[in-house]
């Protein structure tokens, strides 16, 4: 997204609802508490339900641009004849996602890279173009496992966002990062006041102190890739993966993970009708790389843990000069058995 | 019953799709007898003949609902009459469990039924189907487990 001149405004907390009210051209989403005690993005029905200062959502906002299931196209084929293929590019209603944490928006930046390099991905791009991400700067780490600072981010990073909101007693400081963010701001009209110098100073201070909040450290990020390469054959991979149950939590819910599977879902066998569908997949599942012959280049849990960590901290870095991890800590907090990417990097990714 | 308020479901033109799994030796033979006796019953239940009710995998039931069946019927030999000695006893236990589970997740009770029909019970077979179709008709189309396709 094109960067625009910094535009900084103030919004009374109480006016958030009013601003949202003016955005009826867009569908609004924000973190909300589901019945089962899980925070997730949900459509805003009542602005009062919106709670921006809560723990981060379980599902990252990548859902909005890379949903877990996407129909690529429909097919219909009478035996022996040419099939009719119907392209089903997404045409979503424009939407605004509130409450996006900086780590998650930085995840979007990584998704952008994947879905535009070499070949364009029209499904991703179609959704990306229609979705505005409004960030929420963290004042304290929302989880004990946050480590955004260690991976080149910060609790107030603007990467991948259109707007960044920072809470300052009773008010929000709202900064437009992109033009479409600015446009969204503009819709609020008079609800927004220009940020004063002192507001700006207060925000800077808030960002500063959030950044200073202790987090889990990865010491020498610049040397991680090299060290991982060195340690490719280490026995420690197997040892550290001992507890891993090979589920997909760490990867499904990672804001940067982008792997998927493509399958045909048949709704009628004669004539053959159905959809070609892509769904999230994960390198942690054994069949991910398994050939039909049964040969599997990454058969063990250890080799799959290595793939996850090395892909994030070595391969992606080698290609794009940034780790494919934004330090949200989800994979640590949600892993059922305590596999901890920070410890792994500490152990095998340090010179 | 919760369905009372939902009688609107009882659409006039609704013809339920029912899969009837019949064991080859008793119930399928029973249905043959119903045929030979020219008994009339609704055409909604499409029979699939399996070797024995004992070979009735729970997957078949669940899959039929997933594929859009409005009702599923399983029918086998009376206890003690199994052509394969005791296949139907295994079936009874398994089907019981499946039924309890379906009820628990909230599928309407009347959508899944098991019956014992012997080769001599043509009349019973026709009756079982007749009643089942009536009961399922009352419920309307099955939407809960059906895949959106």
């Amino acid at each position: 997204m094109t960067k625009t001149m910094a535009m900084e405004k103030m919004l009374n907390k109480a006016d958030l609802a009013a601003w949202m009210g003016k955005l009826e051209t867009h569908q609004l989403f924000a973190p909300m508490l589901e019945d089962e005690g899980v925070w997730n993005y949900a459509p805003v029905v009542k602005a009062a339900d919106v709670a921006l200062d809560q723990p981060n959502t379980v599902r990252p906002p990548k859902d909005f641009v890379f949903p877990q299931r996407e129909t690529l196209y429909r097919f219909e084929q009478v035996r022996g004849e040419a099939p009719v293929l119907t392209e089903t590019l997404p045409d979503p209603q424009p939407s605004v996602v509130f409450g996006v944490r900086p780590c998650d928006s930085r995840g979007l930046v990584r998704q952008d890279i994947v879905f535009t390099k070499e070949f364009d991905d029209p499904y991703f791009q179609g959704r990306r173009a229609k979705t505005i991400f409004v960030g929420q700067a963290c004042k304290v780490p929302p989880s004990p496992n946050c480590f955004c600072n260690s991976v080149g981010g910060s609790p107030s990073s603007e990467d991948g966002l259109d707007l960044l909101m920072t809470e300052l007693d009773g008010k929000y400081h709202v900064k437009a990062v992109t033009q479409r963010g600015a446009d969204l701001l503009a819709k609020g009209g008079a609800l927004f006041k220009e940020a004063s110098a002192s507001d700006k100073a207060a925000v800077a201070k808030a960002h500063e102190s959030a950044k200073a909040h202790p987090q889990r450290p990865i010491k020498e990020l610049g040397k991680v890739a090299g060290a991982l390469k060195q340690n490719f054959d280490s026995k420690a991979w197997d040892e550290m993966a001992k507890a891993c149950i090979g589920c997909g939590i760490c990867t499904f819910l990672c804001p940067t993970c982008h792997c998927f599977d493509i399958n045909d879902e048949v709704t009628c066998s004669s004539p053959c009708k159905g959809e070609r569908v892509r769904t999230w997949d994960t390198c942690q599942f054994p069949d991910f790389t398994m050939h039909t012959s049964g040969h599997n280049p990454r058969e063990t849990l250890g080799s799959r843990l290595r793939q996850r960590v090395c892909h994030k901290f070595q391969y992606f870095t080698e290609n794009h000069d940034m780790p494919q991890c934004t330090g949200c800590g989800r994979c640590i907090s949600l892993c059922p058995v305590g596999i901890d990417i920070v410890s792994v990097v500490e152990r095998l990714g340090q010179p | 019953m919760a369905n009372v308020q939902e009688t609107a479901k009882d659409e006039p033109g609704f013809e339920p799709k029912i899969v009837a799994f019949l064991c080859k030796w008793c119930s399928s033979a029973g249905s043959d007898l119903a045929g030979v006796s020219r008994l009339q019953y609704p055409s909604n239940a499409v029979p699939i003949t399996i070797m024995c009710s004992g070979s009735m995998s729970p997957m078949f039931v669940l899959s039929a609902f997933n594929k859009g069946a409005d009702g599923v019927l399983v029918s086998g030999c009376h206890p003690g009459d199994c052509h394969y000695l005791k296949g139907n006893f295994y079936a009874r236990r398994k089907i019981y469990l499946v039924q309890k589970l379906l009820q628990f997740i909230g599928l309407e009770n009347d959508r899944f039924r098991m019956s014992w029909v012997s080769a001599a019970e043509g009349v019973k077979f026709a009756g079982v189907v007749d009643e089942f179709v009536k009961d399922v008709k009352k419920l309307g189309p099955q939407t809960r487990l059906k895949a959106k396709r």
Partner: protein
Amino acid sequence: MSHNAYLPKLGRIAAIKDEVPGNRAIKTYQIEFVSGDGFEHDCGQCAMISVFGKGESMISIASAPHVTGYKQFSIMKTGRVTTALHDLNVGDIVGVRGPYGNKFPVKDWKGKNLVFIGGGVGLAPIWPVIQTALHHKGSYGKVSVFYGGRTSRDLMYKADLDKMREQADIHLSVDAKEDGWKEFVGFVPSNVKDKAPSPDNAIAITCGPPIMIKFVIQNLKELGFTDDNIYTTIENKMKCGIGKCGRCNVGKDYVCVNGPVYSWAALKELPPEY
């Protein structure tokens, strides 16, 4: 529509030839594009073939770039899609998208002797290179082809290979003794060692089962071939073919984009996860 990389073009099966019978049967398909808007490809590239309702499979394009009008694929029956492909008849329509992957640097090899070493269905990916070399006679040095299978029934392109004997050295082999077999008996790597092609001004191109490739490379190196004069292709599981689904990722490479063709020198740099 054309920019949607996931959407296949339609191809009609113009011809089917049974190459190898049995449990792991191989058939060769000539597929022509239905509406003429096909694509051009280079040696070593692949295409995703779709059987709608079953799925897609990545298959090497086995015809040479100079062959126009159809693309050739030799497909081994092994799973859902390939079995469905084997069930198709001439005239049936499949989806084709591509071309994907890098290519053999054929142009750089002008004037060199080319040693091809294939096993089983692994002859297919290198076949276009062989065809190209023979097509541009004079541009390349001596062409020799080593090819083997478990039995003589497992060898594909037999008639073509026989025809080729005037232009190239053909060394066939079968794994075990067999009535009427006059050529080499033993594994392909042993045949290579036995015939000992000279590494001078030569490029070796090999493709086949992983275990075969391993020993072929070992033997080639003993013969004096250097790492950057040995080429091979690797097969990793693929779904999208365009570097997004993450499946074929090995080290920093996505095989569907950065591969499948590798010099041994380059391949050694990747983690051994193929």
